[in-house]
């Protein structure tokens, strides 16, 4: 009975795939469909229904802007617009052209008292203003580039 | 088990839906999404009926219970259905010419039954694609004229003159505007033609506003 809840659960299978790969690649979904003998349409139906699932690979760092009530009232809509412009993300995309950042809207992180809240990677920025976001993102960008450069220089082939 | 439907007391069986009981009595409740044993998800909400306690519930999904009182046609129900149809239509691409039902569907019927205007003559028009008058650069008022005439003039080989009066739904006019612009028809000329039959200047102003004033593009 508990097995019934565990094993058959499509949502949890998808969560596992996404956890491993960062998104839901088409091939994995086709494989899942074969393994579980459920139609691909059903799997896509579920994958597109929930916000958590991504069908495109994400940027290196995900920036999530809280669109909850408290954050909205304290100005996160403007922060979002600012980030779009600052990161140069095109209207029909969610990832910046350099593939470093993806921008998404999130629902309340439950830290409303720090509103407005923006999450850069795993780091929560409370009481966010465009100026601070700008600083934080530049810092993150530098550290990624530095890391990449280090890997490029030290590793040879990648 | 007994239920009372529009004041009529009738026998009903356990597990029967309100819709089944009504159909058995010949009481018509409109449905759109319901298809027995195929789709019973109660999505369209057109079949709403009123219970004794004042709640509106979908007849196609609600199981009867002993002593239930049901009305199937009250002003509240009609109003609810009307707004539902309005909404449904506002999200409906009016491409009846390309639809196998050729504008003779339950939706169009219900719309005229509930006084929801918003379906333009084009829906009933036999011409499409290249044959459409507009595609031939003639000024046809079909896209902004209320349907119901089965597009008689067009069948007779003339463009629509708009004798049935204009459709005043903003979304329809916006759609029409797109068609006119796409085919390079002058909106001023359309308005000029509209004057022939457009009864009230209010309606005319409204259409002019929707047709000519540029909408601010969202977001």
């Amino acid at each position: 009975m508990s097995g019934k809840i565990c094993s058959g659960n499509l949502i949890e299978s998808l969560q596992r795939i996404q956890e491993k790969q960062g998104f839901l690649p088409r091939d994995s979904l086709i494989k899942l469909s074969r393994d579980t003998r459920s139609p691909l349409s059903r799997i896509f139906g579920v994958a597109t229904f929930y916000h958590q699932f991504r069908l495109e690979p994400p940027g290196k760092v995900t920036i999530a802007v809280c669109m909850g009530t408290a954050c909205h009232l304290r100005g996160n809509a403007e922060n979002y617009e600012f980030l779009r412009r600052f990161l140069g993300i095109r209207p029909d995309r969610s990832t910046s052209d350099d593939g470093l950042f993806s921008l998404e809207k999130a629902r309340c992180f439950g830290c409303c008292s720090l509103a407005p809240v923006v999450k850069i990677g795993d780091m929560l920025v409370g009481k966010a203003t465009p100026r601070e976001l700008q600083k934080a993102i530049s810092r993150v960008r530098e550290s990624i580039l530095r890391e990449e450069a280090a890997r490029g220089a030290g590793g040879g082939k990648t | 088990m007994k239920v009372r439907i529009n004041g009529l007391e009738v026998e009903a069986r356990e597990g029967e839906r309100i819709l089944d009981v009504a159909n058995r009595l010949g009481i018509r409740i409109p449905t759109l999404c319901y298809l027995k044993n195929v789709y019973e998800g109660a999505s369209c909400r057109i079949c709403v009926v009123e219970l004794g306690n004042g709640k509106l519930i979908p007849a196609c999904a609600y199981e009867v219970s002993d002593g239930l009182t049901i009305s199937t046609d009250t002003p509240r129900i009609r109003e609810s259905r009307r707004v539902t149809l309005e909404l449904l239509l506002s999200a409906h691409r009016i491409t009846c010419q390309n639809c196998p039902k050729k504008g003779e569907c339950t939706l169009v019927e219900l719309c005229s039954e509930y006084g929801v205007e918003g379906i333009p003559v084009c829906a009933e028009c036999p011409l499409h694609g290249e044959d459409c008058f507009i595609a031939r650069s003639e000024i046809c008022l079909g896209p902004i004229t209320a349907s119901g005439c089965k597009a008689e003039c067009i069948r007779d080989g003339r463009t629509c003159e708009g004798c049935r009066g204009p459709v005043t739904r903003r979304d329809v006019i916006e759609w029409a505007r797109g068609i006119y612009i796409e085919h390079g028809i002058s909106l001023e000329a359309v308005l000029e033609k509209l004057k022939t039959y457009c009864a009230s200047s209010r309606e005319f102003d409204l259409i002019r506003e929707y047709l000519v004033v540029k909408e601010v593009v969202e977001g």
Partner: protein
Amino acid sequence: MMRQEYWTLMDPCCDYCLHSRDNPCAKYVVCRMRGPFCHRSVECREKRQRRIREVLYGSQGVRINIGASSCGLAAGAERVLEAVKDGLRSMGVEAEVSAVGCLGLCFMEPFIEIQSEDGPSPIYGYVSPENVGDILARYFEEGSVDGAFAIRKRTGRFKDEDKVPLLDELDVWRKQVKWVSRNCGVINPESIEEYIVTGGYEGLSRALTMRPEEVIEEIRLAGLRGRGGAGFPTWLKWKICREQPSEEKYVICNADEGDPGAFMNRLLAESDPHRVLEGIIIAGYAIGASQGVIFVRAEKPLMAARLEKAVEDARRWGLLGENILGSGFSFDVRVMRSAGAFVCGEETAMIAAIEGRRAMPRQRPPYPASKGLWDKPTVVNNVETLAHVATIMAHGWREFAKYGTERSKGTKMFCVTGGVKRTGAFEVPIGTTIRTLVYDIAGGPHEGRRIKAVQIGGPSGGCLPERLFDLPIDYESLQEAGAIMGSGGLVVIDDTNCMVDVARYFTSFTLAESCGKCIPCRVGTKALYDRLSAIVEGMSSQEDLQLLEEIGIMMKEAALCALGGTAPNPILSSLRYFRDEYEAHILEKRCPAKVCRKLVSYAINRELCVKCGLCAKSCPVGAIAKTADGYFMIDESRCIRCGTCVITCPRGAVEKR
């Protein structure tokens, strides 16, 4: 974590102790605290009492609590924790450092509390790695509690005790009743021992000695109503489910707190997860279920992790699993993480999600209590409801029913956010007035601001204007006034917020979260949103108000589930109380709060401008130009009202008009 290596209260005290998972005994929980009962030994008794003190005050008699739930962590609790450890090390003080949950005093996160058996227990707010050293030095070296936010008792043993207010005398605390949140911010949520020491699982022990019908009766007497929104009597739901003839039944704990701006369920489950779990087990016993599911919101991973840990620990000590406490009742629980969709909070949608489908609600009846998960009878209850159950079973219904109003008993947690001085999660008796909550407890508006309204119940609720703040908060009076209690989110709207914009915001939320199954909601939310957008953009006419009402009323009556049925509430209530703001937008093309971008204009205040020209550089359309006298000016006809110049100006000289 480390503690597992030592002997804990949960372990057998000596070889004579008989309790184990294979040999459960009914008194296991009470035995920890007052035992041992199975063998007579003064030594074992003392060993347990010693351990209890150790749990409460640390092995050195001093314990430092740091609030480390999601909110505290976001505010930097982790670094504070390290700093505390460093500080203690450098002073050579030995004290237990413990990560606890959250006191609900969000405005002063991160906080620490220094507890000892006979100390004043000072609580410090706004702690940072930089100032924590000072705090510790003052306390341990100077013996002073100066700088604390409050102390719990006056002992006369510390300096400056009279300078610091007593916690119980502060408005923010005095008017609260810490009933279900009593352990939040006090115990370490990851330790089952600490829960037991504070009386945990005694409610379960008691319930298991009663017949299920008696448990339901106890909840009926308490008068507990669901805290998830609708306020349905919990006992009745249980009774209906109990009476279903099925062999298989389920309990679902609704931890999919989705209302943006509400976080009391998260706070409770992160700070005191065992209380929630205990409630689930009791519910399972009462209805005769053998399996429970906790459905947790995707965005709240720490909540899921803590509940998982609680389940694991409870299982390990035989409080979950086969033959719980020798009662013959077997029950297990698993935690499932949502994949994120607000509509999952609706019970039939949640069931669909647990079954692995798209979370689309279905027409009720049949209600889940008769046809739920896998078509079996299922009880769906909110996190807070279940935590109340555990507390009621431990303390008796009379204690609970002391609080509240005639028709709604007990206490309820509310999250107050938005334009108030003290944001946080507060527990008050039902029937407390909005004014008490907003002004006394949450401290009223920010300096120079005026509170205009509150929005209760999130996107499903409505707004209430200031003049109705003396309304008691209970299910019925809120409903009459056009709002709902909902899960307990309370957003304070001040004069910098525009009511139309707020209504539009909530509608954008429901529009995005509508599952799309039924027409009233799928198309209705879009239609409402379009009309509201037209209003905030100054492209509307009076007819739009009529249209909003027409569609709103139809949705309320005809939508399939409560998401669509309540979606028009923010609009209908603000139309009822703030029609003038709508009319200002429509007739005068003016936004009174200067929020709606298309209806405001920007101008440079010459008194503040320092002629730096940064604004002109930043403007994407080049609408700002230098004038002959060196100042800058905005050309209104070119300005696209993007607001960039406002952000850029270092002096705040660009103003909205």
